[in-house]
């Protein structure tokens, strides 16, 4: 029983946590791709940027959180989301719009977004330094240890407050996005434009508004993902850049252009990753007691932890070879 709880804590919960982060990033990437038709590499650094805005706000008003009973950073997140959304629109106006108006090839847009990545990384390091920061300033991370009602279970189910907030926020964001895309006129215009951009242009859809809204959603989600990830671990300037590859893998696994696919893709990549580096020795200990001849090594994992980053790579390659359109056919919102 304890072994199972250990497995659940380290694979299912951790996998779902990182999966949710990937999913949130991948939804943004996939929406931008669906509307603007290019891979937006600066997305990860928009996540970091959002988290740093939260850090600034948290440092300015450290007492807000304890008054409400939530982490201050989480309370400040909506404000930073709005700010990041505006910054995303601003970046588009400053850099991408001019290229778009000149009808450049998608690869030029991709290169421009790599440039934006480097700029954002530089700016973040310039203002915040290269060190590690915590989003908990005046408060502490709450950890819930849930006792399980089984005789044989001496271990607890462990989940932290930011992890719970992450799951709740993701559920809220996905439902809100679903309603927006399927019920509102603007959301339908977004779907239409991702479905058939040429027709959208000649059938009265205001493509500029749609592009703006896409950046608003992508920016806000990026900020939320960055903040919730930093709350779970710590905030570093290269925090999100390190997960850029898994995010793109998640978007492609789900079928680029499909936000529901991106959601599923995020969890597929996240759970596979944690499962691959999981150390089976602990779980197999009882077996060793029964069969002493079985001499278990200290670590027994499919992939050593240091090579974790190869997992999304592998998933990416596998999908591109066997199912290039993604698990769910892409290019539709």
């Amino acid at each position, binding site marked *: 029983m304890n072994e199972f709880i250990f497995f659940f804590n380290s694979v299912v919960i951790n996998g779902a946590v990182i999966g949710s982060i990937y999913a949130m990033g991948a939804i943004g990437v996939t929406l931008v791709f669906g509307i603007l038709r290019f891979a937006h590499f600066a997305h990860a650094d928009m996540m970091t940027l959002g988290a740093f805005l939260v850090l600034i706000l948290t440092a300015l008003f450290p007492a807000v959180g304890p008054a409400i009973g939530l982490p201050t950073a989480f309370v400040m997140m909506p404000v930073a989301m709005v700010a990041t959304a505006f910054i995303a629109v601003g970046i588009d106006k400053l850099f991408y719009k001019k290229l778009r108006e000149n009808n450049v090839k998608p690869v030029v847009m991709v290169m421009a977004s790599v440039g934006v990545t480097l700029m954002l990384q530089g700016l973040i390091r310039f203002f915040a330094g290269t060190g590690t920061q915590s989003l908990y300033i005046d408060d502490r991370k709450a950890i819930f240890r849930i006792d399980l009602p089984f005789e044989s279970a001496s271990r607890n189910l462990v989940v932290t407050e930011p992890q719970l907030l992450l799951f709740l926020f993701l559920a809220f964001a996905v439902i809100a996005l679903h309603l927006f895309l399927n019920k*509102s*006129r*603007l959301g*339908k*215009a977004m*779907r*239409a434009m991702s*479905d*058939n951009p*040429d*027709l*959208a*242009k*000649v*059938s*009265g*859809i*205001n*493509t500029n*508004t749609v592009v*703006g*809204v896409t950046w*608003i959603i992508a920016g806000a989600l990026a900020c939320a993902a960055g903040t919730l990830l930093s709350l779970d671990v710590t905030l570093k300037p290269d925090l999100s850049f390190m997960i850029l590859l898994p995010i793109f893998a998640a978007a492609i696994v789900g079928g680029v252009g499909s936000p529901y696919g991106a959601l599923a893709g995020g969890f597929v990549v996240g759970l596979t990753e944690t499962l691959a580096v999981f150390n089976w020795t602990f779980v197999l200990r009882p077996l060793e007691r029964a069969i002493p001849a079985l001499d278990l090594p200290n670590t027994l994992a499919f992939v050593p932890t240091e090579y974790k980053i190869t997992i999304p790579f592998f998933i990416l390659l596998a999908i591109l070879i066997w199912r290039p359109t993604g698990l769910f056919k892409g290019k*539709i919102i």
Partner: protein
Amino acid sequence: MGSIIEVQGVSKAFGGLHVINDCSIAVEEGSITGLIGPNGAGKSTLFNLIAGAFPVDQGTITLAGENITNLPSNVLFEKGLLRTFQIAQEFTHMSALENLMMVPPNQPGENIFNTWFQPGKVRDFETGVRQKAMEVIDFIGLDHVKNELAGNLSGGQKKLLELGRTMMVDAKVVLLDEIAAGVNRTLLQDLVGNIKRLNQEMGYTFLVIEHDMDMIAELCDPVIVLAQGSVMVEGTIEEIRNNPQVIEAYFGSDPNEAGA
């Protein structure tokens, strides 16, 4: 009545291939003008130039006296110049009705602030658009498939939907690109009937590219024949049919003459 579209001295080359050479046509307001010509004559290119799909190399295009040369297609849409596509285009993952409801420009619901702050205005407009879309879908005879995803419609139904799209706004000029291609005879009769009704009842001007000569004969007056990127001859369908130049362009020179 004067001409609503005037194309003057337009040329277009793709690389070294001169597709349109100093071409001038005029479309009378209220007419259904046909544009025919052998394959490769430049019909579709001329269409795309008028519709703003790509820029002209030379020459001017005017819509009701206003210079519209090289304006992008979304601006032309707002000025009432609409087009259909040779291969019917649709938003595949939306119902036929939703496809039509996308069309009216500047809908209040397409504005971020209205969605939040003026939901009533958005809802009223939405009701109006839905009603209009219902009327249109009834007019084009697609009532029975209005909730079907547009991607699942037959080729002919998609063409009807293309026509329906032009009815969602008050179009001045509609460019029809091979609307009959791939449409069965029964549906074609509906289509022709609808085009005539739109022309007579709502005053639409049509410029039609078509390969189906029966349809041209039934629908269009006058007919412009394009060959090698410029106008060969213009006139009624009877004049065109008896014109030796046209026959030569379509079928090559008379074999008896050539053999002699």
